[in-house]
Structure formats: structure tokens, C-alpha cells
């Protein structure tokens, strides 16, 4: 195979107010014809900036440094005038972005967006454009393309939108497609389809592709060769089998060890056994832990949740006379029934829109269910936000959003216990410090603000905030979904340790089956608002009963080594 793209000593620096940021610092690699080349790394590793550098789409303060070389089919493209670059962009190098919501213009019909892409490089009549648009959509397996081209992006699902974005990227039969986390925003089942189709398309059209992702499993499935990036440099490169099978660099090894799918369920993950911010100190907190007891500690009975679209008075009036749209109710949760025993970790699994987060928020008392009720320890979770008891606490997905940027760590953790009399103003320091130590967070840093900490540290603060309320149940809503793998491993380890000593009762909501398998005792699977299957972890993963569960398990990308 001959090489199509040869990158040598690529350096991309950004001038910022804090000085020069060396996002990409001297990387070299080549992509062969017809090959899918995987570029893996955690956030901030420079993998996306590499992609943007190749296509010349850097922000104004970013610059490919002199001495860098990017050769596309033997032609140097560093230093080409903008006009030349524009000719290459879309025609010879095309790009697919992560979020299909953002890349398609919501006010333009699909056919018009495709027309713009076609006419950027050549003249075409309206008929010609339509014909090619239909062809392009058919190529990415969109059914009824003749009808679909006249629709708007909002009428498409996430997976279909990403297919359209891919179709547009392939319009001019480019030599190279750069796909930046193209399946990250999609559900696993959709991701599995797109991975398969992309592979087939690349083979069919003979294009080359750079697949940028943080997810080792998907990259290992789709690409032939990969490069692992870290802090602007490539630490290791080779075939999938070489790099992931016998990693040479400790960083690659660490990334692999951090994957819960490679560890025995319930065990601490290898990569994070030494914590830089200190050990988990639980003091005598374990004494306060409740004894494990059988039976239903948390009971959810026939919970229904219907979200009515707010139509307002005018809407109701027009409906009455049949001229408005009928009211549009979303039945998010249908007759959900589940129990959690004291000291148990229950996994709640489902794809986006399955109603799992809604159910979590109902159990937490943030939403009041339309029907049915929830009891914790025999007492009803009271209705309405303000009257809610302190017995159920919640940990949110995004640690960047769930801490008030203008309150110190101490304040954030102390607010709740102070308001509910769990501690006094005089003892608050000691009280908060105990819980911060329990999540391996240095209490000396408690007077700083959230923006000074990384995602993993913030998520541990959020966990401390929940623990400090001494809850009977903690609802964790995708607590590790937005974290890099190695940070994810640290948070998972923390949860395992806390759970062991404090005998916590957890409801763990997640779309990531490998994390659920690692952490939970029992799993409940939700689909379209209904609970479809409930089983012990081992049972569910080894012998799923329902077709939906089977499909979900099959769709999970596995490390192909």
C-alpha cells in the first residue's frame, strides 16, 4: 500500500493570554491509501487539533509552525494560500464532526445543504443536485432518500444526521476523510451500525480516513493502524494488534488498564491505585454505615411520568376549535417498578430517551411522578422540590456544571449539612474535611473555587457533597460519562471503596455497560420508558433474556485485539 498522507514534525501552537500552548508538538505519521487510521487520546491530548491542522481550520490564534510538513499525495499543503486550501477542503480532504446537531444548519433542507456542498466546488443544475443528493443519502443507507432530502435536520434522528454529515463529506469523493469523534454523541446501537457502514464505505470508495476518538474500543474495531497521543505528542504508533496487544509505552498500558471491561467486576482498576491527591481516609465514618439488610429498602411502585407540552391558553383555545396542533404529551416513564435493598448498587441502563434519567430524578424527588410513588426506608419521598427530604442525594453527570462556580469547595459541601442541622457553623470545617478526606481530596484546598480543579477532582467534590448529607440513597446520573478513561477509573475506584466501607445504597444510571458490569450488583434495563429486564449482573451479561438487552450487549464495542 502506498501512503496518501505524510505528516512530518507537525507543530501547532496557540498564542493565548497565558502564553504559548503547544497543542501539537512535533508529531509524524502517515496514512496509507484506503486505510482507516485511528488517532486516540484523552481530552487535551491534541488529537482534534491535529485534525483541524490537517484541514486548515484552526482558530485565529492557532498556527501550524514553520518546519511542519503535511504532504497529501506528495503535495505539500503547509503554507498554501487560503484560496488553494479552500479548493482542497471538501474536495480532497473532508471532515465529519462529533455533534451532528451542530454541523447541519437547522433552517435549511437537507437537499439545500448538500447543494451548497456540491456548488462550493462545481456548477450543477437543480436537477443534477437533486439526483446527486438522493444518491449520496442512499450511499449512507438512508431509506427513502427521495423523500428525506426535502426534510429539515430536526426531522432526523441523531444517527441519521450523522449519516447525512458523512454523506456530505463523501460528496466529492475526497482522498481523505477526517472523522473527529463521529460516534461519541450517538447511542451504542446506532454507533455499531455506523461503524459497520463506515468500514464498508471506505472499502467501497477507496478513501482513506483518520478516525479521531477517545474510545479505545471503537478505534480498535474500525482502524487498521493507530497512534496514541498524549500532551501534543504521539507516544506510540503501529497496528492495532501491536499497540493494544503489546503496548510498549506505560501510558498506553495505563489507558488499557483503566478500562473497566478489562478488569474483574468489583475490583479496583489498575491505573489509579496510587492517588496523587492523597489516600481515601474514612476515619470512623464506617461506624455510621447502616447494616446491610435484605428486602426492599427503596421501593418504586408503578411510577408513570407524562410530560405535557406547555401549550398555554391560546394553544388550548385553538385546540378546542381544531385549528391548533393536538397537545403533545411525552410518556417518559411507563409503569416503572423496582426495588433496591440496603447496601445494594442497582444499575439503571438504557439508551438516550429511555427514561432512565427521568426515573432517577423522580426517585430523587426533583420531579413529581404523574402516578405511582417512591418510598425510601418506608417513607415516601416527599413531593415538590422544597419539601424533599435529605435522605436521597444526587450526583450529576457533568462535574463542570454541577458545582457553583462562585462558591468555594468548602461552601459547596457545607451548605447542605448546615441548612439541615447535620453540623454547626463552629464544627463545619472539621465536618467538611472529614468528607473531603473520604473522597481523597486535600482539605487544604477547600477554600479554592471549582474552576481551579480538574473534572475528576470536581466529581469527587460532588460525591463528597452528596455524602456529607449522610443520605440513605445516592442517585448517580452518569457520574463518569463525561470523564476521560483514567479519571473515570479513579472515580469508579472511589465509588467501590466508599461503598465497601460505608455500605452505601446506590442507584447507578449509565449508558455504559462495562462500567455498570464493574460496579453494580443488579441491573435494570429500560427501553422507551419501560423496564424490560431486571437481573443480577452476572446473569444479565451472560444470559440476557430480552431481545433488546441482547442487542444492547452485542452493540457494545469491544476491544478488538
Amino acid at each position, binding site marked *: 500500500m502506498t501512503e496518501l498522507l505524510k505528516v512530518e514534525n507537525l507543530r501547532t501552537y496557540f498564542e493565548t493570554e497565558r502564553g504559548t500552548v503547544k497543542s501539537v508538538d512535533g508529531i509524524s505519521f502517515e496514512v496509507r491509501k484506503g486505510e482507516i487510521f485511528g488517532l486516540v487520546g484523552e481530552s487535551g491530548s491534541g488529537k482534534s487539533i491535529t485534525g483541524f491542522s490537517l484541514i486548515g481550520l484552526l482558530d485565529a490564534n492557532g498556527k501550524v509552525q514553520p518546519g511542519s510538513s503535511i504532504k497529501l499525495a506528495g503535495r505539500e499543503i503547509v503554507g498554501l494560500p487560503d484560496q488553494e486550501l479552500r479548493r482542497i477542503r471538501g474536495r480532497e480532504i473532508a471532515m465529519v464532526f462529533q455533534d451532528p446537531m451542530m454541523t447541519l444548519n437547522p433552517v435549511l433542507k437537507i437537499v439545500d445543504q448538500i447543494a451548497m456542498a456540491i456548488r462550493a466546488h462545481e456548477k450543477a443544475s437543480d436537477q443534477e443536485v437533486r439526483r446527486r443528493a438522493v444518491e449520496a443519502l442512499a450511499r449512507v443507507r438512508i431509506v427513502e432518500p427521495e423523500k428525506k432530502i426535502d426534510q429539515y435536520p430536526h426531522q432526523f434522528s441523531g444517527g441519521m444526521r450523522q449519516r447525512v454529515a458523512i454523506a456530505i463529506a463523501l460528496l466529492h469523493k475526497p482522498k481523505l476523510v477526517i472523522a473527529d469523534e463521529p460516534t461519541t454523541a450517538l447511542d451504542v446501537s446506532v454507533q455499531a451500525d455506523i461503524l459497520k457502514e463506515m468500514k464498508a464505505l471506505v472499502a467501497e470508495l477507496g478513501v482513506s480516513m483518520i478516525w479521531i476518538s477517545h474510545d479505545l474500543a471503537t478505534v480498535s474495531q474500525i482502524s487498521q493502524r493507530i497512534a496514541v497521543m498524549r500532551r501534543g505528542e504521539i507516544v506510540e504508533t503501529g497496528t492495532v494488534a501491536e499497540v493494544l496487544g503489546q503496548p510498549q509505552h*506505560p501510558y498506553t498500558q495505563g489507558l488499557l488498564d483503566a478500562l473497566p471491561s478489562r478488569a474483574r467486576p468489583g475490583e479496583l482498576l489498575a491505573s489509579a491505585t496510587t492517588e496523587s491527591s492523597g489516600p481515601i481516609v474514612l476515619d470512623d465514618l464506617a461506624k455510621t454505615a447502616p447494616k446491610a439488610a435484605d428486602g426492599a429498602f427503596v421501593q418504586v411502585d408503578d411510577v408513570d411520568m407524562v410530560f405535557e407540552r406547555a401549550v398555554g391558553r391560546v394553544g388550548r383555545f385553538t385546540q378546542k376549535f381544531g385549528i391548533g396542533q393536538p397537545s403533545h404529551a411525552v410518556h417518559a416513564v411507563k409503569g416503572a417498578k423496582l426495588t433496591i435493598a440496603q447496601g445494594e448498587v442497582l444499575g439503571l441502563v438504557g439508551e438516550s430517551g429511555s427514561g432512565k434519567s427521568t426515573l432517577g430524578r423522580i426517585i430523587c424527588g426533583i420531579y413529581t411522578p404523574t402516578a405511582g410513588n417512591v418510598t425510601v426506608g418506608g417513607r415516601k419521598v416527599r413531593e415538590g422540590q422544597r419539601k424533599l427530604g435529605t435522605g436521597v442525594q444526587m450526583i*450529576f453527570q457533568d462535574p463542570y456544571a454541577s458545582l457553583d462556580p462562585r462558591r468555594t469547595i468548602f461552601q459547596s459541601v457545607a*451548605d447542605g449539612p448546615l441548612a439541615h442541622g447535620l453540623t454547626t457553623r463552629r464544627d463545619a470545617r472539621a465536618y467538611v474535611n472529614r468528607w473531603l478526606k473520604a473522597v481523597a481530596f486535600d482539605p487544604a484546598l477547600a477554600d479554592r473555587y471549582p474552576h481551579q480543579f480538574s473534572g475528576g477532582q470536581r466529581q469527587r467534590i460532588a460525591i463528597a457533597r452528596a455524602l456529607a448529607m449522610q443520605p440513605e440513597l445516592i442517585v448517580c446520573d452518569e457520574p463518569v460519562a463525561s470523564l476521560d478513561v483514567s479519571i473515570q477509573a479513579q472515580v469508579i475506584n472511589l465509588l467501590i471503596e466508599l461503598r465497601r466501607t460505608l455500605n452505601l445504597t446506590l442507584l447507578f444510571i449509565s449508558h455504559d455497560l462495562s462500567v455498570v458490569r464493574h460496579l453494580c450488583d443488579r441491573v435494570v434495563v429500560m427501553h422507551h420508558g419501560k423496564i424490560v429486564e431486571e437481573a443480577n449482573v452476572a446473569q444479565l451479561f451472560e444470559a440476557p433474556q430480552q431481545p433488546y438487552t441482547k442487542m444492547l450487549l452485542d452493540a457494545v464495542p469491544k476491544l478488538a485485539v
Partner: protein
Amino acid sequence: MGDADMSDVIIKDNFESAPPASAWRDFWRVFFRNKVATIALGVVLVIVLVAIFAPFITPQDPYDLRSLVLRDARRPPGFVGANGMHYLLGTDSQGRDLLSAIIYGLRISLEMGLIAGAVAFTIGAIVGCFAAYAGGRFETFIMRLVDVQLSFPAILLAFVVAALLGQGKGQLILALVFAQYAYFVRTAHGAASAERQKDYVQAALSIPMSGWFVITRHILPNSLPPLIVVATVQVAAAISLEATLSFLGVGLPPTEPSLGMLISNGFQYLLSGRYWISIYPGVALIILIMAINLVGDQVRDQLNPRLRK
């Protein structure tokens, strides 16, 4: 390769280094990079200082009628009076030193603008945040009220209120606040509605914290940046509004000569060649408002995340 080696590699990646310098210091560092805004800020500070220490700076106390020499009325800039007084900017129709009058006028204008701005800010921030937090009918009622008010020109509202209440400092401040609080409510409501949806507010409510706590400790502090921007603009607007009202004769009483009244006093002499009585107070007003607006522009650029580089 040993275990320690491995974990070291990963941990270094995931923990950000020591926190950056404080946001406050950063703010001023960026601010001072804009030369025009820095000069404008200097001008505002000088004017404020001059206004505060007016009695010690001005060559004459314009309120002290004994010090006025009627013979020296309407003298041009640079005139040296009978008692040896040097009138740098000339005198007005009562023989008052114009420079002293302008400095005292600035003092009153600034006082009016700042007090009215502060009161409107407070009312607006509280009402706006409460409306956003409470939602439902309360929110609808308040916001529609504000919408109705915003559909009238501020000058018209202020004029009506000032005319109804009569002359006086307190009355004028009331009129200015009435004309301007709606802008603050709008801004506070917009910012607070956005904050209301965020996870950290949900987190606080799920603890649960009381509504009052959530508003005062979470929503309000996080809604401040846009309010501060509006405040700078509105203080400048309040000063010009006050000058307008005083010029039209419904503002301050003659015993409290603000810039607007000075301009109005000199107005009748403008065509007789005695331009200085009106022009110099006008220039002072323009410099003040422009300087405040330039500072406000820079603050807005810095606090608006969309314009951030």
C-alpha cells in the same frame, strides 16, 4: 517498567497544575491592554475625585452668594476679575466662576446618576432573579409589566414622574429609577433564567436548599456579570437623563445647579456670542458620559463569553 512509573505518567496528565492567578487580577490585566478604556477609566476616576473634593479644589464656592461679583457676570474665559479672581472658563450670568460651577455640577450629576443607578440595580436584580426563580404567573406578570414599561421612552416616563412629584433631589432620583429599573429587571431575569436551568442549581435544590438560599447564594451572584455591564451603561444614561430633565426645568431646583441647568442657563446667551456659559458644561457632560460608556464597553467585551477570544 514499574507500577509507580506508570501511574505517575497518568496522574500528571489528569491533575491540572497550580491554580492560575486570581480572576480579579486577570480582569484588570486584560482591561489595561485596551489603551482607550484605560484612559477613559482614568478620566472617570479623576472626575469622581474632583467631584468628591470639590470644596477644596474650586477657586470659588458657587453657592456662596457673597463671593459672587455681579460686575463680573458673563465674562469670557481667562478674564481677571475686579478682586483679582482669574476666571479660567469665564463666568455665567450671575458672575459665578464657570469652572467652579461645572465642578459642583459634575458632583451633583454623578451623585444623581450613581444613586439612581444603584437603587435601580438593586430593585432590578432582586425582582428579576425572583421572577426567574418563581416562574409561573408571578414571572409572567412581572415580565409583561416590564415589557409594557420598556415600550415607553425612558425620557417620557421620567418626565411624567418628575413633573408629578415636583422638584427635589429625592423626587428626581425616584423619577430616574422609575425610568430605568426595567432594564435591570430584564437583564437580571435573562441571566437568572439561564442559571436556573443549570445543574448546580438543580443540585442545590435536590439537597434540598431553601429557595431563598438558592436565589441569594447561587443565582444572584452568578447573574451579576451582565448586570454590571448594564449598570455602567445605565449610570451614564441616568446622568444624561438627569441633565435633560434639568435642562427642561423639571429636574433639580435652582439651588442645586446640575450640569443640565448650567447648560440651560447659558442657552439664552448662546447666540449673543457668549458661548462659554453653555458650551463648557456641555463639554464636561459629554466627557463624563463618554468616559463611562467607554469603560462600560470594555467591561462588556470582557464579561461577555461570546466575545471572548
